[in-house]
Structures are given as C-alpha cells and as structure tokens.
C-alpha cells in the first residue's frame, strides 16, 4: 500500500437532526482505497445514518460530502431477512438488480467461499452463508468501496473470524476501501486500519490501539472492553502463525493474560 492515498469519500462538518434529536454533530471522516475503516459506537450512535449520508442516500442539514466521481459501492445491510412467502434462490438474488452471467456468479461465490449455493433458497442459508452470498452479490458490482453494516450479526464465533479474514483478503486482493460498522471493536481490531468512534459526535479516531486507550472510548465502552481488547491484540500476535485460534477470550482468562504480559 505504498501508492498514493486515493480518497474515496471525504466528509467534513456533518450535522443532521431528525425531529428534535441531533443524530450527527460535526462529524467528518475520510476513507481511501485499500483501507479498512471501522465505525464503532453504541446503539443509536448514528453509525448507519452516517453511512447513509456518506453514500448520498440521506442529505445532511449542513456539512460537505465528497465522493470520488462514479464511485461504485457494494453494500451489506444490517439485517437481511427474506419472507418465506417470497421464493428466492441465491441465483435470483444475485440477479436482482444486475445481469451477471452464470460464470461470473460462480466465480464470485467461489471468491467468498460459498460455492454450490447457487440454487439454494435464500431462506435456507445459515447466518454465515447468507453474509457470504451478500458479499458475493456486492462484489459483482466490482465495488471501489464496500460498506458492511454489522456483518457478523447472526454468525457464530468461528464464522465471525472467518468472515473478517475474508473481508481483509478481499481488501488485499481488490484494493477496495471498506467501511465496517460494528458495536464491538473486540474482533474487528486486528483487521482494521482506522477506527472512528462515534456517539453522535466523533469521540475519537485513529489507529485501533490508540483508540482503545482513548479516555472517551473507555468512557463509552468501559474499562473491561478495553482490557480484553488490549489482550486480544497481544494474543493475536502470539497465535498469528496457527490459524483459527483467534477467538474472543473469556474475561477471566483475558485478565490473567493481561497480568502476565
């Protein structure tokens, strides 16, 4: 990533009120190609709203959003439940708003490790499979920017890690920018370049380690979260060679390791 930073979306001084409630107060951020930005904050912090503003789906009351011209975006919504009354196979889902060829569809399902799902009903997929299929669908748009709103919901712990690694792999191979929304920095940490901690205003921003030590972050998420986080990165370095062990650590265990470090 030595190439010059190619900015995809820049936002500054965003303000947005809905009714009487201030949703965004003086929010700004910048995302470049090849970068994973994690947007973290408690429920109701305005994360999804901010993304909608960044994508141009919602107009801010004031402030500026600059998107790269012709920016193509792949989007994974926060929730994706298809009613059982609607018959929908993965194949039809992939062809919902575009017309990819069967080869393209298979290639993209392969890329996300979800081959052989093409003719399965969408409703029969597991949480992890569903996210992979949605990721493949987003990749079919050949996106310069991937926006993933809470991608690990309804995915089991093993699957969560695999999913994050997959996202990092996609970033490495395609060089696209990624905006990841999460309410838990815990797992995202090792896979992210920049963290923006949002609670209607920007609490803090920077590299994950710096953010995890920031007083505003600690005030928002508690010392406990920060501790397990610190250990988590430590532990991650430790087990980096052997795959599959980067799992969330039990609180006791976490403190124990922390003391020993």
């Amino acid at each position, binding site marked *: 990533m030595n190439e010059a930073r190619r900015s995809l979306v820049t936002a500054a001084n965003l303000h947005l009120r809905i009714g009487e409630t201030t949703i965004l107060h003086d929010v700004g951020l910048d995302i470049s190609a090849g970068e994973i930005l994690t947007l973290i904050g408690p429920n109701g912090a305005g994360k999804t709203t901010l993304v909608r503003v960044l994508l141009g789906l919602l107009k801010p009351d004031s402030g500026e959003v600059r998107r790269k011209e012709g920016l193509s*975006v792949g989007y994974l*919504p*926060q929730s*994706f439940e298809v009613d059982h*009354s*609607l*018959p929908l*196979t993965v194949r039809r889902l992939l062809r*919902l708003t575009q017309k990819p060829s069967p080869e393209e569809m298979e290639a993209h399902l392969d890329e996300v490790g979800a081959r052989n799902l093409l003719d399965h*009903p969408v409703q029969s997929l597991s949480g992890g499979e569903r996210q992979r299929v949605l990721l493949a669908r987003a990749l079919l748009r050949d996106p310069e920017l991937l926006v993933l709103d809470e991608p690990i919901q309804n995915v089991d712990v093993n699957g969560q890690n695999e999913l994050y690694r997959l996202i990092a792999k996609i970033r490495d191979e395609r060089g696209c920018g990624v905006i990841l929304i999460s309410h838990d920095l815990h797992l995202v940490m090792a896979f992210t370049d920049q963290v923006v901690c949002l609670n209607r205003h920007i609490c803090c921003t920077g590299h994950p380690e710096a953010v995890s030590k920031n007083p505003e972050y600690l005030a928002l998420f508690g010392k406990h979260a920060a501790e397990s986080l610190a250990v988590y990165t430590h532990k991650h370095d430790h087990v980096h060679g052997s795959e599959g062990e980067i799992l969330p650590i039990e609180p006791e265990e976490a403190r124990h390791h922390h003391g020993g470090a």
Partner: protein
Amino acid sequence: MEDFMLRGLMGGVGVALVTGPVGCFIVWRKMAYFGNSMAHTALLGVAIGFAFGVDLRLGILISCMSLTIILVLLQSRKTLSTDTLLGILAHMALAVGFIAVSMLETFRVDLMGYLFGDILAIGVLDLWWIYLGGAAALGVLAWLWRGLLALTVNEELASAEGIPTFAVKLVFMLLIAFIIAVAMKLIGILLIISMLIIPPAAARRFSKTPEQMAALAVLAGVFSVAAGLWASLEWNAPAGACIVVAASALFLFSYAWEMIAGR
C-alpha cells in the same frame, strides 16, 4: 356456451391475468390488509361518484387514491404502525361513505352487489374495461418489477443500489387502488380481494423464483375462474362465491401437497 357465461369467463380470466402477479407482491409485502382497506374505502367512492354525477369507477378511484396518499403521509410520521393507520382510515372512510349513502335520498346502493358483485352480468363494455385497464396495470407493474422486487427483498439494499424506493412503493399502492376501483364494480369486493391473495398463496409451494410464482398464480387464478363458473352453472350457485371457493380449494390442495411431499 351461453353468451353471459362466455363473457363471465373472459372477464374472470382477464382479472386473473392481472391479480396473479400483482397479488404476489401483496402477499410478499404483507399488504392484504391494505387491499381490504381499499375495498372499504370504495363505498365512499360510490357515494362521491353518485353525488357528483360522475362514473362510479372514477369516484372509487379518487377515494382509494386519496386514502393511499393520506396513508403515505401519515406513515412518514412513524408514530403508528401501518396496519393501525389503515384500520383507522379504512373504517373512517367506510363510515363516512355509509353516512353519505344514507343521506343521498334518491340513491339506494345495492351493498350486496358491491360485496359479491356479479361476474355473470359482465357486458361487452365491461370486458373492454377489464382488458384495457388490465393491460395498463400490467404495463405499470412490468415497469416497476425490478425495483419493486429489489425493495421487497431488502429495502435498505435497494435504496443503496439507487432504486427510488419511496416512489416505487407509492406507485404500487396507487396501482392496487386502480385495480380495485376498476374491478370492484364488476366482480365485487370479495372476489377481487380473494383473487389478489389466494392464487398467489396457492402458487407459493410450487415456485422457486418470484417470476415462477407470478406465472403459476395466473394459472391458479384462471383455473379457479373456470372451475368456479362451471360449479356455479352445475349447482346453480352464486358465481363469484364459487370462484373464491375453487381458489381456496386449490390453496388447500397445495398445502396438503406440501405435507405429503414432506417439504
């Protein structure tokens, strides 16, 4: 075959061609209550049409479309759920319509006629209405299809991919209002609502894609019309009700099929 039977059959088939695909979206989007509310509102439209001396269809169309727009405006405030708002609006419209009808002294509305209609009384002019109106409705639906399906699958995703979700939803609701307005005077509330809901429900078990379900819903609708008319002739029973019973039987069959096939 008698002329009136042929016209009834042609009219019913024309209705089924439209209600199959449109009804699928009503089922997928859980809008059955919206359809019902439109039908309730139609009485007000009948009164309006009579009071102002215009075509009753126009009166129904105006009242149904007004109700749709009021609903959409209230929905944007997000304080009450859609079914509550519909419950309020539809019954208000029904009550006002009933009062209006009772005050128009020279006007005696045949409520049974509006409830059950009379498919065997369809005339040649009515057939024109069904087929031209139906072609227009299908044209609008074809134009909406991609966006409407995308937002039915996931509204957030659709809007992120550039589909004007608000406009698409509004046009679809107005389309339902139009279909009910045109069809109600001919075949009655019971039959039009049933034709929108039951054939798509019967088609669900045998479909793998939305388009298959729409096509099968048309087939189920056509079959119900033919079987219902035949039964009505055979047993001298009211035709509209026979069609509804035939469609329901088809639905029960599809349900039983699923149980036996163990899917």
